[in-house]
Structure formats: structure tokens, C-alpha cells
């Protein structure tokens, strides 16, 4: 983009955060537990896992729907929609946004959700195949766009409303799309992120059949081992991570607390395989994200890795990071938080990005837990010793989805003197 056009671009601030996760139902609980190296992976108790090779998952446990929703609401809100509303409530309160009707008309709701519809549909279709009756609620409850729609309805936002489904990269693309909308002046603010639940009997069995899940049922907290030589797969989870994004002008006008800014986003595809990652694809999207942020590889202080703990993801991601960052890759801390929170599919990228934002705020990195045995093909600095102090000015967050949809986001400390005056 030439210099003449840059003056019309807006910087995009992060002014509110909300989290519902297996480590707790608030940003504070999530971050405290993550820094402590705790695991939210447990033996599944909510449904029968007898026929499944895997019997562990990362459930949101300290959550009782009846405390937050009426009986009628719980019937009409899937688990993903409920978690989305809870996280968005925290994010909006945190942001201090108090929108007039006119402002609400420009507030976008762009959410990533991908698997929650499958899990929500199971009880309905169980009834249908048992007795032939189909509830009129099936479609409005299970559609993957329901979490986004329910946020718009509940909070009165009338700007663009959509769900982005790109499997495990859904919420990275949702955040990236919102970033572009604000950057190019099409939106003033957005509620974005992801909400999803991958935990139901049939869905878990399906993932297990694909041989992607850890089968270390006897040791749930230590089952998911990103970058470890003895890793045996991911652990399914659930949760919601919601961010309030707004233009620098909007944030400064209302004297909002600014956590940081989104400075880069790239989206690209492997164009290769439905389940296997491609190193050139992963490297390419990281390079594009750096270019989008106008940064060089050595500007990045920290990488939040996709790190699912599958054999292929972790070694391919490591190779791609080395390709992009060269010999200095070993000097950049790389953390995978899925060992602690599992893989919440559509919500995972948003939870990961929120952890990056908190690292910017506190200059602290969470550890990668459960790295037991070094893998010669995973030879970067994975912060295995526990939380680590680190000055973070620019952090990259990677998301690589089944089907080859890749996203990389860059978040940066907000330095007001860099502003061109928007």
C-alpha cells in the first residue's frame, strides 16, 4: 500500500477481553491458572465415553447455566451460545463501552464457531431417530452462526453479523476480518472472537476415530504434550474468548483502557490435504502476517503456537517457524497453551490471542506444559520451566486448521507516538 493511502487507515485497539475456559470463567482466572501451569483436562463426566478410545476432555466445569439463563433461554441457547454470551458480557463490561443507539448500529459481531452445532445437534437427533419427532428448535439452536446471532440480539448490535467457520482457525479469521473492517474504516468497533464446544459423545468418538486424540486416559492433566517426543494427540475442549476491538479514534475519544493493538493479520491456504499440514503453507502465512504488520522477523518477541500436540502439527509448525525466523528462531520463546486448555476448535484461536494480549500487558509468558521428552524435530525454546518474564512488544499468534486454512495474527504494545493522527 502506498504512502498516500496509509493516511486513511485506522489503528485497531483492543479494549475489552472476556473468557470462559476450562481454567476458569473469567480473564483473571484463566490467566492466573495458565501462568501457574495448571491443566484444565479431566476425565469426562458429562456423557458416556465407554465406547470411545479417549475418555478425557477440557470441560468448562465451574459453570451452571441455570445461574445465568432462564429455562426457556437454556432450551434455545446451545452450549456455544451460552459460553459466547458469558464471555461477551465480561468483555463489554471490561471495555466500558456504553453505546448509544446510533453507535450500536455500527457495532459488528463477527464470531468464529465451527463444531458446536454438531455437539448441540446430538440430543435432538437422538430423539428424532428414537421416536421420529423433530423439535422446531433444532435449526435455530444448532446453526453455527447462533452464537454470533445471540450476541447481536442480546446486546442490540446492528452492524455486520456473521459467523466465520474455518475449523480450528475460525476465530483467528473472525478477529482478522474485524481488524480489517476497522482498519479500512468500514466499522468503528466490533465484538469478535470465538465460542465453541467440541464435547459430546458422537463428536468425541468421531475425532477419536480419526486418531487425533490423546489416549492417555489415566493421566488427564498430563495427557496433552505439545512439542514433546511422546505426544500422542490433542484433547478436545470448549470455551469462549471474546475481544472488543475499536478504532484508535474511538478508544482515545472515550479514554478507554487499551490493552494493545492488532497490527497484522494474514490468511492463506495450504491447498494440500484435508488433515495434514504443509510447512510452506504455515511459513507463508507467518511471512504475510509480518508484512501486514510492517515488521521484520527479529521484531517478534514471542510466538503463541497452534501446537495441538499431534505428531504432524508440532513438528511442521516448528519447521515453518525456523524457515521464517531463520537462525534466530531459537531465541524466540514459543508457547503452546493447548496442553492446559485443550482444543476448543472455533474458540481456540481467540483464547490463544487473549493470552498474547495478557503477555503484552504483564510482560509474562505462560509455560508450555507437559513437554516431557525433547523431540529432535521440535527444537525451539518452548518455555517449559514455568512462567517467564519477557518484555513483549510484538507477539505472533498462529492458527492452522484442518482443511488447510491458516491464519496468523500480530498483536503489539500500543505506542501512541507512532500514530499518524487518525
Amino acid at each position, binding site marked *: 500500500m502506498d504512502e498516500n493511502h496509509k493516511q486513511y487507515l485506522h489503528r485497531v485497539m483492543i479494549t475489552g477481553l472476556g473468557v470462559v475456559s476450562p481454567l476458569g470463567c473469567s480473564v483473571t482466572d484463566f490467566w492466573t491458572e495458565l501462568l501457574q501451569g495448571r491443566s484444565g483436562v479431566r476425565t469426562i463426566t458429562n456423557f458416556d465415553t465407554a465406547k470411545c478410545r479417549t475418555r478425557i476432555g477440557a470441560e468448562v466445569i465451574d459453570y451452571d447455566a441455570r445461574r445465568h439463563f432462564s429455562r*426457556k433461554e437454556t432450551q434455545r441457547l446451545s452450549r456455544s451460545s451460552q459460553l459466547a454470551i458469558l464471555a461477551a458480557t465480561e468483555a463489554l463490561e471490561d471495555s466500558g463501552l456504553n453505546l448509544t443507539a446510533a453507535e450500536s448500529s455500527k457495532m459488528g459481531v463477527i464470531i468464529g464457531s465451527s463444531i458446536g452445532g454438531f455437539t448441540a445437534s446430538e440430543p435432538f437427533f437422538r430423539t428424532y431417530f428414537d421416536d421420529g419427532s423433530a423439535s*422446531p*428448535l433444532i435449526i435455530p439452536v444448532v446453526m453455527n452462526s447462533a452464537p454470533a446471532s445471540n450476541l447481536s440480539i442480546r446486546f442490540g448490535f446492528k452492524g455486520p453479523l456473521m459467523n466465520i467457520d474455518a475449523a480450528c482457525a475460525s476465530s483467528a479469521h473472525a478477529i482478522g476480518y474485524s481488524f480489517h473492517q476497522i482498519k479500512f474504516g468500514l466499522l468503528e468497533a466490533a465484538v469478535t472472537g470465538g465460542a465453541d464446544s467440541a464435547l459430546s459423545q458422537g463428536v468425541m468418538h468421531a475425532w477419536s476415530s480419526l486418531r487425533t486424540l490423546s489416549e492417555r486416559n489415566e493421566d488427564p492433566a498430563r495427557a496433552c504434550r505439545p512439542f514433546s517426543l511422546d505426544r500422542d494427540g490433542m484433547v478436545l475442549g470448549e470455551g469462549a474468548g471474546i475481544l472488543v476491538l475499536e478504532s484508535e479514534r474511538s478508544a482515545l475519544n472515550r479514554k478507554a483502557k487499551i490493552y494493545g493493538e492488532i497490527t497484522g493479520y494474514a490468511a492463506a491456504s495450504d491447498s494440500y490435504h484435508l488433515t495434514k499440514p504443509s510447512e510452506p503453507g504455515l511459513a507463508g502465512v507467518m511471512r504475510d502476517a509480518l508484512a501486514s504488520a510492517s515488521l521484520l522477523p527479529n521484531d517478534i518477541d514471542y510466538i503463541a503456537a497452534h501446537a495441538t500436540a499431534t505428531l504432524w502439527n508440532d513438528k511442521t509448525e516448528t519447521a515453518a517457524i525456523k524457515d521464517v525466523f531463520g537462525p534466530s528462531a531459537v531465541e524466540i520463546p514459543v508457547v503452546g497453551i493447548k496442553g492446559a486448555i485443550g482444543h476448543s476448535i472455533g474458540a481456540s484461536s481467540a483464547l490463544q490471542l487473549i493470552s498474547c494480549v495478557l503477555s503484552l500487558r504483564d510482560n509474562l509468558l505462560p509455560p508450555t506444559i507437559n513437554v516431557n521428552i525433547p523431540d529432535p524435530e521440535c527444537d525451539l525454546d518452548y518455555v517449559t520451566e514455568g512462567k517467564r518474564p519477557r518484555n513483549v512488544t510484538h507477539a505472533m499468534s498462529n492458527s492452522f486448521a484442518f482443511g488447510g486454512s491458516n491464519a496468523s495474527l500480530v498483536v503489539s504494545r500500543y505506542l501512541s507516538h507512532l500514530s499518524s493522527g487518525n
Partner: protein
Amino acid sequence: MKPNHHAESNMTREELIERVKETIAKETNISFSGVHLDTRLEDVNIDSLDMIEVALALEKTFNITIVTTELLRFQTFGDVIEELQRKLSSE
């Protein structure tokens, strides 16, 4: 196959109103004590999705069929009663 006889067709209007109230209250978990014939269903928090479930329950209770165009015309409690009475008396 259609049954030859409907016990419901011999009901008085008052009995019909009570049975419909019971059916709707059971289906929606909404108290129907203060509801009159001219009460708008929306005003007692029964929306279009609830009405689909209510119609299903009424079909079972009274052994009738409510087609979609009829369902869409139900605005007040009285609309439901009039339609049911018409259906039951034409049997």
C-alpha cells in the same frame, strides 16, 4: 387413518378453553391464569417458535391437523380457540 369419532367434539366452549389453556401452559411453562380471548400471544411471551411447539401439542391433544397457514394466523388466544372449535365441530 382418521378416527370416526372425537370425544372432543362434544366439549363445551368453556371446556375447550380450559383444555387449550392447560395444553399451552404445559408446553410453554407460562402461567395462563390471566389470559383472555383477546390476549395477544406475544404479550404473554409466546413467540413464533413457542407456537410451533404449542401447535404440535394441540394436534396430539385434540387429534387434529393444524397446517402452517393456519398456524401463522394465530395472533391472539381467541384465534386459537376459534380455529380449534371450527375444526372440532366440522368432524
